[in-house]
């Protein structure tokens, strides 16, 4: 199967401002993902995982390297538009990712309006459908983001992505700031969406426990490089790279019943 997105030789350098030095956020990344896959990108701060996720959807431009979408090189605005028909993005901070002055329905439906898909009535019903899919009520479309909790707002962001029928969603630390019980609800929602709609996921997180639960394949990043890439089971049972082993050791293990 042809990869949906293929990134090759991605290098990203941030220019230092004033006296601070330039930062090499990504030092040559090769990464590809097939339709319907659930891939996890795990790393600590400074690993470059968030930068990579933003480059994959074009809200950050790589200093060097190429992105291919369905085999086609993506460079122009038109081509990024095409990529974004297939790939959507969910942000980490639920309190910054929704325009506070737009109703939920407007935020979710704007993409449809821009694309001109269907009449306003049809768009509205798609918005309501998306809200139901993520576990909210259709009537919520008329409320403003301010009345919703963090977990609910992430659902709204998911709805905004889903309403455009993407083949894949890139989730950048979307559950990191949420309470444990809310996190579980969102994770299960993602599993559900994957299983029933075949939506692929690129899930970026620093929490190995979450990634283990959710993802089939894992990429471990450290200081701008991919140090290991493997399917989940193998990565956990037989980690190859020293850093991976180190990470696994540091995860707070907790106690499980019957210990």
């Amino acid at each position: 199967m042809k990869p949906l997105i293929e990134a090759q030789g991605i290098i990203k350098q941030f220019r230092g401002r004033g006296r601070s030095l330039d930062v090499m956020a990504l030092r040559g990344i090769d990464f590809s993902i097939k339709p319907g896959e659930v891939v996890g990108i795990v790393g600590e701060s400074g690993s470059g995982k968030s930068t990579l996720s933003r480059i994959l959807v074009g809200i950050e431009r790589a200093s060097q390297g190429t992105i291919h979408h369905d085999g086609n090189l993506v460079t122009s605005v038109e081509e990024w538009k095409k990529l974004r028909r297939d790939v959507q993005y969910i942000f980490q901070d639920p309190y910054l990712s929704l325009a506070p002055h737009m109703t939920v329905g407007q935020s979710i439906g704007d993409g449809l309006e821009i694309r001109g898909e269907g009449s306003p009535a049809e768009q509205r019903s798609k918005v309501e459908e998306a809200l139901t899919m993520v576990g909210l009520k259709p009537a919520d479309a008329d409320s403003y983001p301010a009345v919703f909790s963090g977990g609910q707002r992430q659902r709204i962001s998911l709805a905004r992505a889903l309403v455009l029928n993407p083949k894949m969603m890139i989730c950048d630390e979307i559950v990191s700031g949420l309470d444990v019980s809310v996190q579980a609800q969102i994770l299960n929602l993602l599993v559900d969406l994957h299983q029933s709609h075949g939506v692929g996921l690129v899930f970026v997180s620093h929490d190995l426990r979450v990634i283990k639960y959710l993802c089939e394949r894992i990429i471990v990043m450290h200081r701008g490089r991919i140090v290991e890439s493997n399917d989940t089971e193998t990565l956990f049972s037989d980690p190859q790279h020293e850093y991976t082993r180190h990470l696994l050791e540091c995860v707070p293990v907790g106690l499980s019943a019957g210990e």
Partner: protein
Amino acid sequence: MTFIVIGAIIAPFFLVDPTQIDLSSALAPPFSPGHFLGSDALGRDVLSRIASGARVSLIVSLLGMIGSLTLGTIMGLLSGANTRWLAWLSDRLIDIQMAFPYILMAIVIVSATTASIPILILLMILAGWPSAARVIRSIVLSERPKDYVKAAEIVGADQKRILIRYIGPTVVPAILTIAPLQASAMIVMEATLSFLGLGVQPPTPSWGGMLLAGKVYLSQAWWLTTLPGIAIAITCAALIGVGEGLAQRLRGDRRRRVDVEESQALTAGGKQ
């Protein structure tokens, strides 16, 4: 402030015609019969001139403010545009206009055309829009990198849509806040220009014009300049007060969250 506005609107209906010349009671001091605040050299009642002057000054300033805010907002939004040359152009225009002394500009323009109220309003718009634009621009620049704007990009919104639909509404509170301040500046501007003879022309009463006319009589009839001057000062203060009040309201009352550094300092205890 409300009082001033209401006063300016209704007063001319009740008071003596401000343009009525009555040489017999020329230069009457305040509290003279028939002239509560005195009269000027031509016997015109100062109180009614102040009141009608208020009308003129307020309307002119209001129009100037609206025009300046509109132009300022547009330019400010453009400054935040993604198209680099457009933003650059906008920025340069703001800088140039700000650097140009408005009185000089006023002299140039008035001498090229004539002194009249529409020209006056134009001058005020030209003088006032850069400061509005700067405020708008800084808001646009700070909102740009935020996630919801990026999310809009990903969903397919182009620059125009983002500026108008996404960032636009966020500048509204700022506009409301600077509006009274701009109006206040406009009042002073009008007074200044009229005082220099570049603004409202007699016999239409205006505060600046009254200052100009009364200047000669400063030693004999202090009320001719002082009273309009006080009117200007009070109006400006009132406007600024409205502005502050609005600003406070719009900031809202955020429940004070625990200030981490403060807590750290407090937990360190001891003599602070």
